[in-house]
């Protein structure tokens, strides 16, 4: 009896566990980097299809319900008739000045009509091609909002609002996730490459050099302190204060700034044992902070490379290209320069490559910016802590 039950359990329980494991793995995967990238991509593509369908469908419906809106107004014909009438009524008194003025007015009206027509943009089918719709949904969830394509139907507007409400948190999740991963990997690369941690010999030599320098500094300070102590009659000890600086400083009256520095400097161990250095090399990878200048350099170089890329695709000059990249990556998005402009009007086969590259540029760039802010925040907090410590020491020595 018991054996049967146990066999039953042995068969059943692993299945349950396996199911749980699967669930857990699936959830972990979906919240991992790959999952979130896929989620954002699919969300954008789905949004593109939905918007395209809605806009084209609504447009068709409008055409049936209100056909008079969609009749192409013949502006040049209107203007022609008007000028003809003007000419016909003016022919009697043949005043050239008046005639020119009136014709000028007619032309001005005509020009205004043309401007208005041009500003409204091309018709719906051209505007809401798949690439256009994809760019639109991307600009919605990244909150760039170029505004070169906007929904004209009521349903399109409502769906945009809903789409933004769901999509923006998703994108924020993407940003924080990918930014984190990028920051970690960037830090690793920085520590391995820029500080030469990758070859142990260089690192060891560097650390030994630094320690030697620190020790020299400490010795100089010690000497200085000894001299000052000898000069000052009131202070009783200084030479042994280095070793037990913490306990002595609480009671000592000449707890000066220099001694604070000395105590921090003297934390460096005297022995140059290999294991110690190895430990330091391995341990300090997590504690390392990337300096601000490197972050700024990465951002600027990304923007400049984007300027060169877009300059080649869209025939912009470098100022326009970098302006566009900055405006896009800071999620301002004026929409006076839009990468899709040529893309949307071009034929559909050629579109996709440059278009996909543009979308990738935007997504990657935003993650990169998030990464840089992540690293900069770390560095700033680190600096602030150091400043705070300095201030504290300063206050302590002033008030004594």
């Amino acid at each position, binding site marked *: 009896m018991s054996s049967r039950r146990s066999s039953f359990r042995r068969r059943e329980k692993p299945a349950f566990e396996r199911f749980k494991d699967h669930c857990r793995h699936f959830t972990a995967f979906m919240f991992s980097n790959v999952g979130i990238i896929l989620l954002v991509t699919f969300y954008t593509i789905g949004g593109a299809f939905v918007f395209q369908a809605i806009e084209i469908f609504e447009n068709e419906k409008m055409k049936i319900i209100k056909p008079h809106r969609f009749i192409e107004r013949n502006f040049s014909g209107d203007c022609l008739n008007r000028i003809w009438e003007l000419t*016909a009524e003016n022919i009697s008194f043949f005043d050239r000045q008046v005639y020119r003025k009136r014709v000028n007015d007619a032309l001005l009206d005509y*020009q205004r009509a043309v401007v208005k027509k041009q500003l409204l943009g091309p018709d719906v089918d051209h505007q809401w091609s798949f690439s256009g719709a994809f760019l639109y949904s991307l*600009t919605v969830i990244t*909150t*760039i*909002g*170029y505004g070169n394509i906007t929904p004209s139907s009521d349903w399109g507007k409502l769906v945009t609002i809903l789409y933004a409400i769901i999509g923006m948190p998703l994108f924020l999740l993407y940003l924080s996730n990918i930014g984190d991963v990028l920051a970690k990997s960037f830090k690793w690369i920085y520590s391995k490459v820029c500080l030469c941690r990758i070859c142990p010999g260089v690192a060891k030599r560097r650390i030994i050099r630094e320690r030697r320098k620190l020790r020299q500094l400490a010795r100089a300070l010690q000497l200085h302190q000894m001299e000052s102590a000898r000069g000052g009659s009131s202070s009783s000890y200084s030479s042994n204060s280095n070793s037990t600086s913490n306990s002595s400083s609480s009671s000592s009256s000449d707890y000066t700034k220099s001694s604070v520095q000395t105590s921090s400097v003297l934390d460096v161990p005297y022995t140059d044992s290999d294991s110690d250095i190895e430990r330091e090399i391995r341990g300090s990878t997590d504690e390392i902070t990337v300096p601000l200048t490197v972050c700024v350099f990465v951002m600027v170089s990304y923007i400049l490379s984007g300027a060169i890329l877009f300059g080649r695709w869209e025939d912009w000059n470098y100022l326009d290209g970098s*302006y566009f990249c900055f405006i896009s990556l*800071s999620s301002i998005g004026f929409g006076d320069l839009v990468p899709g402009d040529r893309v949307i009007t071009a034929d559909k086969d050629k579109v996709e490559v440059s278009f996909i590259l543009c979308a990738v540029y935007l997504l990657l760039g935003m993650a990169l910016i998030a990464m840089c802010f992540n690293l900069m925040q770390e560095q700033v907090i680190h600096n602030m802590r150091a400043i705070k410590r300095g201030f504290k020491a300063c*206050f302590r020595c002033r008030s004594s």
Partner: protein
Amino acid sequence: MSHKFQRNSPQMLGVASTVSSTTPSNQPRKRVKRCCRNFVTFMCTQVGVGALIVVYAIFGALTFMHIEREFVDTTTAHVLELRQNFSQRLWNITEEHNLIDKPLWVNETNSVLREYQAEIAAIIKNGYVGRSPADMWSFPAALMFCLSVITMIGYGNMVPRTPWGKGFTVIYATFGIPLYILYFLNMGRVLARSFKFLYRSLHDCTQEKNYDARLEALEGGGSLGALTLRKKIIVPSTACLWVIMFYILTGTIMFANWEKWSFLNSFYFCMTSLCKIGFGDFVPGASLTTAADVDAATQKLREDIAADPNEVSELQRIADQHSKLAINFIYMLLGMGLVAMCRNLMREEVRVKLKEMKEDTKLCVEDTRLRFVGCCGDPRDLYENDYY
């Protein structure tokens, strides 16, 4: 040493008033230090940051006006010249054919018009909108532009055309956006705290009645429960959503009235603005920038006194749009603050909910395990389960 440190640490935290009141500050250095500290704390409060934002925006507006108005718009002159040219050509055609041969005249004129259209279309492609920069970059419009840059909305109805303007936009955004984020975080914290306080006091008020009723029944036992209840009050996210919804609805009605938009369009505008998307298909104050229309209306009014009263009201409307724009400005800044507040509150709630959920699932798992063991357990299985 220890008491010194104690005196220093609250100063670091910025609680200056209590410390400075206890110690008599005769020395000028200390007074200066305190003044500095007070100034810094004030600048980091919401008032200081808000004032800084407003000053920064006004400074930006003036600079952009200066830069963009300098821009010699050759296209406007070019368009004017083009029009003169074409009217001259039309005159020539008229003179030549002299209205005797209508089909021929129509043909010629049509070809001229088509040429004109092509020229105009080419100019529009290069960014001509039919208004001179001096008309476009009025002070309120420039202010709205600056706000749209630093809040990252970016409507895009007005954009800098000169290279200097573009460069300055980049620099302006580089310094403006961190400032705005500071404002956002600060405003969010302050609003969240005050909203929580308001909610708590309201909650206490409503709780008081129930509490009185319960006190009669329970006597003394209830007080402990009420105390523990007060500690645990967390503003539910529905309350935040109600506040945001109310704010957006207010904005919807306001903009629908002012700009004569439909309610859906107005709602759409409010949502896209507060989400920082900012398409720019609907922009408040777009009607404001058509200064030429105002001038025309004034001239018409001056020419004949018997103009229709509609135009007078129109003028009146345009005259008080400056105040409207100020309100619009405040609406945007406040709305962003409210969004930040909701973000703060909801994050807190979500954190608490997550913790509760974790505990719940832990309990649930434990419960099922116990039931499982109790249902079909033998000592070996129990041991196995303990392993997990």
